[in-house]
């Protein structure tokens, strides 16, 4: 029970494999998430970044049991949600009230045949949160107000809304059950630039007002840095680095994080001209047949024999800064951190 005060969310060695053809001995699996561990404190935002197919979305969905996890343990506010080793699985219904998700595509994640009021109200019905129709209606209007929409919107259908407004509906739906923890799965990447800032600010306001805890998944590191307290970087199903947001972006230790950061185009012409990009060669390998040892080694400039033989351990090199790399040493990390301090 000591975990209760310290870490609101504890994820240990999460594994999520999906079958990918083959039979018997030859059965193949997509190793979408392989041995990922992290913790999130109450009221904190953990950002998760990585390229498509790195398993960031799958991580979020596995925690909510939208998939059956292949391995690992997930403790939510002191309660074990699942522990695959011990075969403990919690009944999810009461926890669905506490954990919610906002999906990436506001065009696909709202039922086109339901009014916005019913979309938001569905969760209220499922969990019997309203005593009568009047109360249900009031709750819906209150939720729509919270996300910057108004009562007239309740009777409209999703197609009548713009992308930004739809995403607000998606957020209102997640808030309907008064959750503590929300998985935000690329909630702004389908929106226009001028609208993104509105939605990001709303996420921040809601967190402050309602004391929410976020797992914020996105591929855009600038956005993730803006909203997160700490950031985890994933590559091909594994977590390669995790550190406080500013430390990670200023002093990346893992070679992958370094190149990821240098690849981001800076919206500042003078800096863009002087910036030297570390351009990675080649493509991300297939997660069905990942490289042995360190999964990044096929594209890494520092890769050696050792990287092919054994997978580096994901360890806390400096307090609060986790890295999984054979070549990053404590001295190197300290030197880099001191330089950028």
């Amino acid at each position, binding site marked *: 029970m000591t975990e209760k005060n310290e870490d609101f969310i504890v994820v240990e060695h999460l594994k999520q494999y999906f079958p990918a053809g083959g039979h018997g001995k030859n059965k193949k699996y997509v190793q979408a998430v392989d041995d990922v561990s992290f913790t999130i404190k109450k009221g904190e935002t953990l950002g998760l970044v990585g390229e498509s197919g790195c398993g960031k979305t799958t991580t979020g969905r596995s925690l909510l049991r939208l998939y059956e996890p292949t391995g690992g343990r997930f403790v939510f506010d002191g309660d074990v949600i699942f522990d695959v080793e011990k075969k403990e699985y919690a009944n999810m219904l009461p926890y669905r009230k506490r954990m919610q998700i906002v999906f990436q595509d506001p065009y696909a994640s709202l039922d086109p045949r339901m009014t916005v009021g019913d979309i938001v109200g569905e969760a209220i019905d499922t969990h019997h949160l309203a005593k009568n129709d009047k109360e249900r209606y009031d709750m819906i209007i209150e939720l729509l107000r919270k996300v910057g929409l108004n009562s007239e919107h309740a009777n409209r259908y999703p197609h009548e809304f*713009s992308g930004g407004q739809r995403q607000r509906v998606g957020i209102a739906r997640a808030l309907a059950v008064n959750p503590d923890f929300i998985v935000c799965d690329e909630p702004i990447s389908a929106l226009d630039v001028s609208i993104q800032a509105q939605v990001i600010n709303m996420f921040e306001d809601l967190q402050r007002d309602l004391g929410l805890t976020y797992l914020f998944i996105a591929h855009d590191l600038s956005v993730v840095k803006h909203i997160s307290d700490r950031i985890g970087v994933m590559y091909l199903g594994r977590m390669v680095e995790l550190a406080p947001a500013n430390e990670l*972006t200023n002093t990346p230790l893992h070679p992958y994080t370094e190149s990821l950061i240098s690849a981001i185009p800076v919206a500042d012409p003078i800096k*863009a001209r002087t910036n030297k990009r570390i351009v990675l060669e080649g493509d991300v390998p297939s997660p069905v047949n990942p490289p042995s040892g360190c999964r990044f080694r096929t594209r890494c400039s520092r890769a050696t024999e050792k990287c092919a033989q054994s997978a580096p351990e994901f360890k806390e090199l400096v307090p609060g800064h986790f890295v999984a790399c054979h070549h990053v040493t404590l001295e190197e990390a300290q030197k880099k951190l001191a330089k950028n301090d």
Partner: protein
Amino acid sequence: MSEEYLVNIEHEKLSFFTPAGEVKALNDVNIHLRQGEVLGIVGESGSGKSVTAYSLIGLTADPGKLISGSLYFNGHQVDQMTEKEMRKIRGNEISIIFQDPMTSLNPVYTIGNQITEVITLHTNKTKEEAKARAKELLELVGINEPEKRLKQYPHELSGGMRQRIMIAIALACEPKLLIADEPTTALDVTIQAQILELMMELKDKLGMSIIMITHDLGVVASMCDHIAVMYAGRIVEYGTTDQVFYEPKHMYTKGLIRSIPRLDTDEHQRLIPIEGTPVDMLNPPKGCPFGPRCEACMKICLKQNPPITEFDDTHYTYCWLQQKEAMERLAADSSAKSSGGGEA
């Protein structure tokens, strides 16, 4: 005057006549581009960035109609051309890379087939020569084992690889102008970096011009010489990259630059969003299209579209605020040469 520019679009007005009504997709758009230059067109979805470029190669046919204006490419008036003449230019002198490499390659033809098709169509090369050229092109865009790739189908390749194939097809006839319509939006950042690097390298090698259509301000900052900012079918601001980023004049441009989160600051600053929702192009507002979302909106903005304000040869905007400021400044300058202009 049209001689010195490779692309010269003047006062282009283009509408789509849809069942729901007339969509005025382009309103008085002017674009001038010299050989070897890179022009970035930024704006949100539906602002007319793609339509501007597509109209240059006649891809806006049917519901789309050019209302007025003229389009020149390399001295030829494109909008007067017949379809037959157009086909000689399209894919040959002007080529295009589309946003989504997943859907713009034909899934039932091999990569080799799709590249050689362009070459045999536009040159007198034999099949064998075309094949050799295709191999050369794949090497040029950095694809390993070109022999093998030529025989593969699009589904066998990754997204970044497919976009490279698209670039190879676009470059097959050494075009004078390359239109890149959100070429990296569907790709991951590390792959995006590869593709952008490749495009710039090839631009220098082949001396072509590029029109880069994107909504990513980061991409234009690193690649472009000039930037056109579009909003609701109009170019609201046009200038060199530095002018647009460091001295933005239009409120929309200012808003855009302010609203993106930055990677290079440690303090947590609240983002300043542009309020409101994008324009409904079927019922655009009266006056300045950005008026209803503009924080500095004045009475006149909702009545009349602002006239052009030119700051120098390369930098202009359409904003009433600049008009007023310009006038005030003139008045202040003439009465007493006191303080320099400072913006809010």
